[in-house]
């Protein structure tokens, strides 16, 4: 009973924790986006998320649009609080009124003249100020792209409600001009927000606005940004949910096993009750009622554990989102009723579902055979061909689902689940086969005890096969995910080796590791290019652009041999594409971009540029594992032709032959001192940093994997307990016939070891199949990456060892209990 409650609790805890972590991240994003969006229905943005401020003036003065507000938003770090980011919202308080209720307070509660006219002033919520240990009048040091600036906090905002407190948390509100100075955006805005009238009149207004807007400026719905952000993390979140469901599937096996055990244990009682006139329906209700109790108890504990675990996971999930997608700070984590309801539904539902078969088993047997355990075992053995057939059917259905055209991740996971079930239903037949093969060996090693241990796995097949199946599933998940992560990692390593060819990489500190769109000061660029010991310096610029009506990352590469050398093409003619790339309106797209947007060589991408919309020809698709969102690669010449931007986001330096790279870094550092803080990494350290981020991204996966193994361990423990308790009498008879307590240990250990070994062996084909599907189907459908499968014998060996160890560990308690029990007690209970 305790073990089944624990099993349900663990399954529910994992699902709820992941759900809470995902929900909290989404909610945090919603709040931060709400903070800057307010009641705006639309906004106008520029080609690179930058817009000339004159557009705003024209809009107010010439087009006569009143409900319009200029906005600059971004993030700054706080040097005194390493790791802490503040969201900055630059506004015009005079235009704010209809947009954001909380910024209304800016106008009412402070010296408006000072806020607007003084440079470098801002307001914070009282709560944020308290967290940062700041009072009104204090100066707050902030850092953006390696440059430190001071903002004088002239007033603190008191939140009027819980909701506005959450929106205001971590928000620094400044005047537009301060924001422009802070982000180096002189004369520019992030966007102009608009409140357009009722839906019915909107289309006319939109048409008029589009007519009015200058080249490069685009009108968008305000929800577009949130949708894009949500789209970014969709696959990431879905994959986490799927992994958490795996723990629940293993948990269900555990519940099934425990409920069956509970029925078997009370077979005599059920037989007596049936003989006394209790109906089948009543027996069914009794067993299901008990399952309900287990489900409710387990779910209750699971919810509490899930909430606790979720707090840890939310940190990991947020870290990954920050590394890969966008800046996100989860201030409060959200206890969503929907997450809890899902946990309750899954926990109780899964328990009841898992209990149906045992409940039917208890009711369907005739009274005379309810008392005979062997009847059930005979039935299981007789049913082996049917189970094998079902397994085949499940496998075929899974394969059909996988080869179905389409990119549905949910269907891929359904196929994965069916394959797991196919292996699970094949387990009894495999156990019988393997036990027969193992019998002579076990006999040679352990004599009659070894033989009995092997035969015992067949005799109690209904128990052993469930325990072996749940362990097999958990271990195969370890193999599958392990091979996937390994393959991914080694592919990324090879890719980094290929791509990172320069000796030193210089860039301003960015906010998102994988997407650095910060700008190097022009003087820094000049210093780097003129540095002694540097024989080549190549620039890269990252910008966010609108391509085919979607936001996309544009990677602009300067001229040089590094383009060709560091890029491996998946599609396209390598001999011709590079000439065209430098000279014409040809761009390259990364593999994930090609996959997400179904864009291939020869297609065109329409990009919003500072010269208006422009079509670019896709010349090649290149391998890129830097971002699952994908990127478009453009030559610097082409970029400068269509965009006004002349900045660079990073420079890669090639050292002269024989030049000591570390000495070169030190020398550059000396020359840059006091100018702009930059990250300067050697080839090796950048590679290491990239792999660190990679490993951090998969920490959640590893945590989930371990939890699944732990759930399976509980499953095996429960199954072994059930087995050994059921065999109490058999062992007592053996004790009566001369089996010593030490031989009891040997018997249980050999049997559990064999079960673990079987689970380990069977987990290899399933694990590799899972890995294949994860890599070639789910990863493809989620992210579009081509990964080389990397199977190391170590990972397979570890899996078998893990299975055997888990089983042996689970056998310790039953072995101890059985060796200490008085056989007379079991023999007396006749």
């Amino acid at each position, binding site marked *: 009973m305790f073990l089944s409650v624990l099993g349900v609790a663990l399954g529910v805890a994992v699902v709820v924790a992941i759900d809470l972590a995902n929900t909290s991240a989404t909610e945090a994003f919603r709040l931060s986006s709400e903070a800057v969006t307010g009641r705006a229905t639309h906004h106008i943005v520029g080609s690179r998320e930058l817009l000339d401020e004159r557009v705003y003036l024209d809009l107010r003065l010439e087009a006569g649009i009143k409900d319009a507000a200029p906005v600059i938003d971004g993030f700054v770090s706080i040097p005194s609080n390493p790791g802490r980011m503040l969201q900055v919202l630059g506004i015009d308080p005079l235009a704010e009124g209809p947009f954001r209720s909380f910024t209304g307070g800016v106008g009412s509660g402070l010296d408006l003249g000072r806020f607007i006219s003084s440079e470098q002033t801002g307001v914070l919520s009282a709560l944020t100020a308290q967290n940062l240990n700041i009072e009104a009048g204090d100066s707050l040091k902030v850092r953006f792209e390696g440059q430190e600036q001071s903002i004088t906090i002239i007033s603190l905002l008191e939140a009027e409600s819980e909701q506005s407190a959450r929106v205001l948390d971590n928000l620094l509100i400044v005047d537009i001009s301060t924001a422009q100075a802070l982000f180096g955006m002189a004369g520019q805005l992030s966007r102009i927000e608009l409140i357009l009238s009722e839906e019915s009149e909107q289309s006319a207004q939109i048409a008029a606005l589009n007519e009015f807007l200058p080249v490069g400026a685009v009108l968008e719905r305000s929800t577009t940004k949130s949708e894009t952000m949500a789209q970014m993390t969709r696959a990431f979140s879905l994959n986490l949910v799927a992994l958490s469901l795996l723990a629940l599937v293993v948990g269900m096996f555990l519940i099934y096993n425990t409920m069956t055990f509970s029925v078997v244990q009370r077979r005599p009682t059920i037989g007596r009750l049936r003989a006394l006139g209790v109906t089948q329906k009543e027996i069914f209700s009794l067993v299901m009622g008990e399952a309900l109790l287990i489900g409710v108890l387990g779910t209750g504990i699971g919810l509490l554990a899930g909430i606790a675990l979720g707090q840890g996971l939310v940190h990991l999930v947020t870290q990954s989102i920050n590394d890969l997608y966008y800046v996100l700070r989860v201030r409060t984590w959200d206890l969503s009723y929907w997450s809890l309801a899902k946990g309750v539904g899954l926990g109780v539902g899964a328990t009841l579902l898992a209990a149906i078969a045992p409940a039917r088993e208890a009711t369907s047997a005739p009274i005379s055979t309810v008392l005979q355990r*062997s009847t059930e*075992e*005979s039935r299981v053995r007789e049913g082996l061909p049917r189970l094998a057939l079902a397994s085949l059917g499940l496998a075929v259905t899974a394969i059909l689902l996988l080869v179905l055209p389409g990119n549905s991740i949910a269907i891929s996971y359904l196929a994965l689940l069916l394959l797991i079930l196919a292996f699970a239903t094949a387990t009894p037949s495999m156990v019988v086969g393997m036990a027969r093969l193992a019998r002579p060996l076990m006999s040679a090693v352990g*004599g*009659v*005890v070894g*033989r*009995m241990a092997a*035969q*015992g796995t*067949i*005799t109690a097949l209904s128990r052993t096969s469930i325990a072996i199946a749940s362990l097999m599933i958990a271990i195969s998940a370890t193999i599958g995910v392990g091979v996937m992560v390994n393959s991914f990692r080694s592919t990324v390593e090879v890719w980094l080796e290929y791509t990172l060819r320069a000796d030193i990489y210089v860039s301003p500190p960015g906010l998102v590791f994988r997407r650095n769109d910060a700008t190097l000061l022009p003087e820094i660029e000049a210093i780097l290019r003129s540095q002694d010991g540097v024989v080549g310096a190549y620039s890269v610029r990252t910008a966010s652009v609108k391509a085919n009506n979607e936001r996309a990352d544009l990677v602009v590469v300067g001229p040089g041999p590094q383009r060709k050398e560091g890029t491996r093409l998946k599609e396209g003619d390598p001999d011709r594409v590079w000439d065209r790339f430098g000279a014409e309106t040809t761009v390259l797209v990364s593999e994930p971009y090609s996959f997400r947007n179904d864009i291939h060589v020869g297609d065109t991408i329409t990009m919003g540029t500072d010269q208006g919309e422009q079509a670019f020809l896709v010349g090649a698709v290149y391998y890129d594992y830097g971002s699952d969102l994908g990127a478009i690669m453009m030559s610097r010449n082409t970029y400068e032709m269509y965009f006004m931007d002349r900045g660079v986001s990073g420079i890669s330096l090639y050292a002269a032959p024989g030049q000591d790279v570390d000495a070169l870094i030190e020398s550059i550092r000396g020359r840059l001192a006091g100018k702009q803080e930059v990250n300067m990494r050697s080839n090796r350290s950048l590679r290491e940093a990239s792999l660190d981020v990679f490993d951090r991204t998969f920490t959640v996966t590893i945590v989930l994997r371990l939890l699944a193994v732990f759930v399976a361990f509980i499953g095996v423990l429960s199954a072994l307990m059930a087995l050994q308790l059921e065999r109490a*009498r*058999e062992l*007592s*008879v*053996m*004790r*009566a*016939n*001369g*089996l*010593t*307590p*030490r*031989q009891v240990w040997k018997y249980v250990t050999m049997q559990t070891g064999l079960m673990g070994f079987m689970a380990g062996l069977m987990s290899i084909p399933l694990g590799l199949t899972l890995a294949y599907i994860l890599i070639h189907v789910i990863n493809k459908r989620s992210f579009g990456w081509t990964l080389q499968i990397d199977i190391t014998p170590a990972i397979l060996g570890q899996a078998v060892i893990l299975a055997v160890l888990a089983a042996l560990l689970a056998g310790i308690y039953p072995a101890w209990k059985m060796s200490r029990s*008085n*056989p*007379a007690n079991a*023999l*007396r209970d*006749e």
Partner: protein
Amino acid sequence: MLPDSKHEPLLKVVNLTKTYLEGESERHVLRGVQFEIYKGELIVMLGRSGSGKSTLLNLISGIDVASSGEVFFGNRNLTALSENERTLFRRESIGIIFQSFNLIPTLTVAENMLLPMELTGRLSTAQQARALEVLEEVGLKDRSDSYPDRLSGGEQQRVALARALAHEPLLILADEPTGNLDFKTAGQVMDILQRLVHDEKRTMLIATHDRDILNLADRIFSLQEGQLVEVTLDTAMGV
């Protein structure tokens, strides 16, 4: 028929008591049981259900531990042995037949029979041959590779009998050996018992309330209120 010698008891039980704790109260199942068994004797122990017959057999075999008193096999005090020593002694020297057969479902008929010998780790060819002989004697030679769940109740008990006899123990303890069998099958089992015990001069203690067995007995004891009393055949028949 009397045994050859009554001077050297094979088994000597001295003032044996067994008390169980049932909640707060104590239940005295055996109260100072004393008796001796000599080599070649067939002793029948009568007693109602719950009178303590099985408990006494468990104490004699060392499966259970007495509250007080001693059990001697020859000069060896079984009650002074450790759990492990008692087990080793049991598998060498005692054969047990249970009411509900208690064959090991994971072992074949032959393996069940050889179990006590195999557990010693020293199963000789001669022992194997002897086991097959015994199996033939109980009429189940052709079922040696079958698993217990394929056998009838009578067949299972015959295997249990063969298992108890095959390793040629000093003493055979039988707890209601015909209790789970119908009249006809019980008769068959008793015939085998009689043949094996009397012809081969085995020493046996049978706990039963089957009066048909009484005719085979050399001596009859009755276990009443925790004490063992020797009774005559006539008394036993009237009990």
